[in-house]
């Protein structure tokens, strides 16, 4: 190895969003191009009984395929996954074959929420380490800030939506206060930024 310090290429993106999320996700997710190569895993706080509409509606508008994973669904690149309502969504790595897949849990809510952003972010950080990029968008909750800290502590990249332009500023502000956020930017800038740094880190790691 040339250098230990070089950041490896990104392998996954996680996004956490709460109040204002329906609109924000409909804005940001269609901006990811059809050939975007990474899995994008999303926790949107929502009620379990109103679930199918969000996924269907996003799938109609996105270039990437949008799915709601089941327990043990294999994580595939180029797909957007929306956590099912009423379950925590976690990332698992198969010890035997190294395959990545989702696991669900009905453990108690975290930060009053199930799915919880922290649960997804923390489990994804443990599997992807420095190859993970985490994004906190609009919301009126403090969920996700522990997850952001975990991603940062394991060498990943962290982004918060600009609280000044976010529909609800509380959640990105709370994440920023952890001092674990690398970049603060407006919603519309995020997909393009991710595509750019994906390429950049690819080039650097060669």
């Amino acid at each position: 190895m040339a250098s230990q310090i070089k950041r490896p290429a990104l392998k996954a993106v996680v996004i956490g969003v709460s109040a204002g999320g329906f609109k924000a996700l409909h804005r940001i997710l269609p901006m990811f191009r059809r050939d975007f190569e990474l899995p994008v895993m999303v926790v949107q706080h929502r009620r379990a009984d109103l679930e199918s509409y969000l996924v269907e509606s996003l799938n109609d508008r996105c270039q990437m395929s949008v799915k709601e994973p089941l327990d043990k669904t294999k994580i595939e690149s180029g797909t957007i996954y929306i956590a099912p309502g009423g379950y925590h969504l976690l990332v698992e790595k198969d010890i035997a074959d190294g395959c990545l897949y989702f696991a669900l849990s009905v453990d108690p809510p975290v930060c009053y929420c199930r799915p919880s952003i922290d649960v997804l972010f923390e489990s994804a950080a443990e599997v992807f380490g420095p190859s993970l990029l985490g994004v906190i968008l609009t919301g009126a909750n403090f969920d996700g800030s522990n997850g952001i800290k975990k991603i940062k502590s394991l060498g990943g990249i962290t982004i918060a939506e600009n609280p000044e332009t976010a529909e609800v500023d509380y959640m990105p502000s709370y994440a920023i206060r952890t001092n674990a956020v690398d970049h603060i930017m407006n919603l519309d800038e995020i997909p393009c930024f991710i595509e750019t740094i994906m390429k950049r880190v690819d080039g650097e790691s060669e």
Partner: protein
Amino acid sequence: MNNVPSYPLHQRVMDIDDIEIKLILDAVQLKHGYDFTNYARASMKRRLNKIMEDSGLARLTDMIPLIIHDNDFFRFFLHSISVNVTEMFRDPPFFLSIRESIIPYLKTYPFIKIWAAGISTGEEIYSLAILFKEEGLDENIIIYATDFNDNVLEIAKRGIYSAADMRLNTANYQKSGGKESFAGYYHADYNSVIFDSSLKKNIVFANHNLVTDGVFGEMNMILCRNVLIYFNKILQDHVLELFSKSLRINGFLCLGTKESLEFSTSASLYETIDKTARIFKKKRDIICSIHKDDN
């Protein structure tokens, strides 16, 4: 404090976590006989971290001496690591589907055996008992309600739950096609309610461990909802095979609404009856020699 680069460090930290988890699970197995090695790793880790925090321990491995020497701690540990709190009539459309599609079919049998596996504190068992009673399946039916944890079986047997949960439970009951007044099934007393003991007359509560115990009867229906999500694929396959051996032909398998057969080796034995409610029907028996012939 020296400047250690963050990524090589994380590799080492993750390894330490895995070592600690393995040592804890080994201690549990050696001292108490429970095998958690094939539980899903991410949820297990969260739960172990929670136990560590709740107990004021500095390290995961600090719980090992307690697991070995302190029975009160182990009760708490076992509860924290394995008990899934649920609600009555969780996923009302599932219970509606049982009511409308499955029960009319079950009624054609002279005697019905049902196995609810991993019942935890029993909310689902009382939901089922109420449903069967309302649909006239009160005689010639036996419901085996099993869990590997005797403490939760005791809670389930008592049938006492928090009064605060009854609002949600009542709403679920109504959405699931309930035909009576839900409050008629329990007696409220201050902060708790006790369910009518007549609901238990067809229920046999028994200790059964899905990891280590085997087939104990031929069932018309098996319910195991939101239990398999806590297992890894190896253990899921093992348990689904146990269910396949325990179900009669045309028997029903009911899983949690986000659990799937499609990733399992047992998938080909079943046809889907209700895709969203996750109700499957066993079409044929396992052919035991199939793996040997492949080699």
